[in-house]
């Protein structure tokens, strides 16, 4: 896909301006899922700015973000990297047949104590 088009889509969906980033790395430093990610929050910012979005769309990192807003709150420039991760993730799961979590997979993952909140949240993050 056209790099410029993809970048503009991510910026439109997220409302983020990656040009504000001053490359301090605090977003990745504070990310609780850092060790599990191939691309870290600061890389989402720089790669989206360059339009390198296809590698991000293929990465498992999209599903490691916990939506804890630590990078959003702790960024000294208000860049809000998690909003970019959300935009890239949605642009993947909004495609036909791209749901990561299917309803039929759910029963096998349940246990007696699992709160409904876990299931509805997982659907919000992994499926459209």
């Amino acid at each position: 896909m056209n790099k410029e088009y993809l970048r503009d889509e991510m910026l439109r969906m997220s409302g983020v301006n990656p040009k504000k980033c001053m490359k301090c790395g605090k977003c990745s430093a504070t990310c609780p899922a850092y060790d599990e990610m191939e691309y870290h929050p600061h890389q989402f910012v720089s790669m989206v700015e360059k339009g390198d979005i296809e590698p991000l769309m293929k990465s498992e990192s999209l599903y490691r973000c916990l939506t804890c807003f630590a990078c959003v709150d702790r960024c000294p420039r208000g860049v809000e990297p998690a909003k970019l991760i959300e935009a890239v993730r949605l642009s993947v799961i909004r495609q036909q047949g791209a749901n990561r979590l299917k309803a039929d997979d759910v029963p096998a993952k349940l246990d007696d104590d699992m709160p409904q909140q876990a299931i509805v949240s997982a659907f919000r993050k992994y499926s459209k």
Partner: protein
Amino acid sequence: MKFSYFPGCTLKNKAKDLDIYARRSAEVLGITLEEIENWQCCGGVFSTAKDEVATKLSSVRALKEAKSKDQPLVSVCSACHNVIKQTNHAIQTDKEFADKVNRYMAEEPYNGETQVYHYLEMLRDVAGFDAVKAKVVNPLKGKKIAAYYGCLLLRPNSVMKMDDPENPKIMEDLIKAMGADAVVYANRNECCGGYVSFESPELAKKKSLAVVENAKAAGAEMIITACPLCKYNLIKNGADIPVVYFTELLAEALGVKEDTNE
């Protein structure tokens, strides 16, 4: 004072304790919780995408219902509060989003008029912790309790505005009002892993255990939370001290843990 109350899906099922003790405690404090009729699940997570509209409509309808009664809206679950408050903020600050939302609203439009409270804010700002303290009949003396905020209560701070997101004290103040000792520890506002427990249990385990170990190292004998998923993750991943809802302790302190109406 009357509030429109949004319980949320989990409080009707796996987290009944969070709900029941919140209702009983509010009664003691002279606050009426009127459950919103026909509320629908908030969805658990707020999507920050500006073009994500349909998933936010259940929150908007709850907010609109509260507005029609001229009441503020309160919820106890951290996730419901986070989603509803962020949705309200999006309507207030993003005109395009508000316009899209209102195409789904019959009759009156909704433009973010409702005031959104978390139950803890209601205790602090409406009842007042001094009033809570005055109503305590079973002070939890000598108990060392660690408040676990997690992420959803405090962040993003520009929207949630509950407390200092890096050094919060609202739950510690409640713990003190109930007569117990508040244990302050570094990981109290770090994430437990949240919904990732659904597909990456190992990641959730690492995050949850870090919270429990940190609280214990600071001397905690018990952890309190407002979030069913935090509670589940901490217990599931091996917390060896009790993890309970803050409302349960509150009801205990206020002497209404046992139902006297039955």
